[in-house]
């Protein structure tokens, strides 16, 4: 019961975050939205795990937390330098 309430609250927030991701306006806003969306996914997976009584889910939540971090860094690096390895001038990427 309490898990359902929490899940609904998180889902609602996911919708809010998603609209920020779609609206933008800048790319940084989108990255921020994706990052915080990832956080919420971790939470909702944990809560769902409890709802269905299978705490195995926590491993997945952990993977999420991890991937979320690596992904955000990759995106940022890409955005700052223009590709994943090299350091190119960032001015090509005004959006």
């Amino acid at each position, binding site marked *: 019961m*309490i*898990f359902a*309430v*929490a899940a609904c*609250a*998180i889902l*609602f*927030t*996911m*919708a*809010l*975050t998603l*609209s*920020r991701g779609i609206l933008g306006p*800048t790319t*940084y*806003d989108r*990255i*921020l*939205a994706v*990052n*915080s969306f990832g*956080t*919420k996914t*971790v*939470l909702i997976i*944990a*809560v769902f795990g*409890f709802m269905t009584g299978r*705490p195995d889910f*926590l*491993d997945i*939540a*952990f993977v999420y*937390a*991890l991937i*979320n*971090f690596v992904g*955000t*860094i990759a995106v*940022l690096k890409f*955005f*700052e330098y223009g590709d994943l390895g090299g350091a190119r001038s*960032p001015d090509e990427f005004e959006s």
Partner: protein
Amino acid sequence: MQLLTDILSWITILTGSFFVVTGGVGLLRLPDFFTRLHAVSMPDTLGIGLIVLGLVLQAGFTQTSTKLIMIFLFMLFTGPAATHALAKAALHGKLKPLASEKKDQEESSP
């Protein structure tokens, strides 16, 4: 005892959910990117913290709780790092913050 932990976890999870939702609302309402950063740090700290605390209370002292706490700690370490990196990138990407550089420190502090 069972009732007590149930009530406690209800309270914590509900408060946590409240902060998560507030974070979402803030993400939409606040006017520019840098202020939105603040909205995100709310669910990232208290929101997750309280919900995890509530879940831990439900699970009791088991392996599940230790895993939950580990996830929480992991996010507590990586979250600010990611936020900071994002803010720094935005600052260097010539995104103008909607804020006054605080040079009038002397006149405003008395």
